[in-house]
């Protein structure tokens, strides 16, 4: 490789290092806090942009929510408390995992109920067709059947 090429390569490497460094400007008291921050910003949904979490969105409100998450974590809020804080202001729209209440309980009960209903239907149908009594053969038919069977063998 020629010197000029090496120089260009080194320059590009330096630029890419700066690009990485620019994203990571937050300073955390410890690594646990950093992990909880990363985890929470993945879990919270941006209220302005339908299918992005606040970690992945560049919208101003997502940025505000990231900053608030950072601030609350350093104030000693638990993960649940941070989520509640956001839900109190931005409704359950901002959480991907729905909370259990009378409106959402059907998400869990629905499939179970559907399965139960299906099982009941299947057993009911099976029993009905199983219980139809076979027709009794008369003596005439019995002897005819016997002759047929005999003839075959």
């Amino acid at each position, binding site marked *: 490789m020629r010197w000029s090429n090496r120089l260009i390569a080194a320059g590009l490497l330096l630029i890419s290092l700066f690009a990485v460094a620019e994203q990571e400007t937050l300073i955390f008291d410890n690594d646990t806090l950093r992990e909880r921050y990363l985890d929470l910003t993945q879990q919270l949904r941006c209220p302005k942009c339908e299918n992005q979490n606040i970690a992945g969105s560049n919208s101003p409100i997502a940025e505000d929510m990231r900053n608030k998450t950072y601030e609350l974590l350093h104030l000693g809020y638990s993960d649940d408390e941070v989520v509640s804080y956001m839900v109190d*202001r931005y409704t359950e729209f901002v959480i991907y995992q729905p909370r259990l209440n009378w409106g959402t309980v059907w998400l869990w009960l629905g499939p179970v109920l559907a399965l139960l209903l299906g099982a009941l239907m299947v057993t009911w149908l099976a029993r009905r067709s199983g219980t139809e009594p076979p027709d009794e053969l008369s003596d005439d038919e019995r002897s005819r059947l016997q002759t047929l069977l005999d003839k075959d063998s």
Partner: protein
Amino acid sequence: MSKRLVLFMPLVAIAAMMALFAFALLTGVNPQEMDSALEGREMPAFRLTDVNDSQRTLTEESLDGEPYLMNFWATWCPSCKFEHPYLNSLASEGVRIIGVNYKDDRELAVTWLRDYANPYDIDVFDPNGDLGFELGVTGAPETFFVDSSGIIRHRFQGPIDSALWENKLKAVYDAME
């Protein structure tokens, strides 16, 4: 016969679901629409300054008294410019409007209010969007309908125009005490 009816039940269920999806698709249900978490709750506590006077402190108690609209606006927001003349005419009709200058620059805000007239009874300056965050604001313009005891009755996202006001929002405002 009833057995055949039972066998048709899954088909009926699917038809019902398709009807539901068709309804959502055809009536244009907006998946981005989000209810306000604040409706029915009290105006949150805040401590900010006046747009026109950085020495003057404003709190939630500064707003008490009569029902009001709290309008979040900014000079960087094109829809706010569109909305502004209508807010002026509402104010001239006696509607009390509190302005919250949201994530903006004080100088720009003062110039704007001088150039385009000021419909606001009180001008709150919220440069970091703190009050906005407390109220679950996601952008500007956004307008809250607050009654005389400081309870938030309604939240409207987007610019208000005369049609919206006459058809929907006036009734909400008139119902407040």
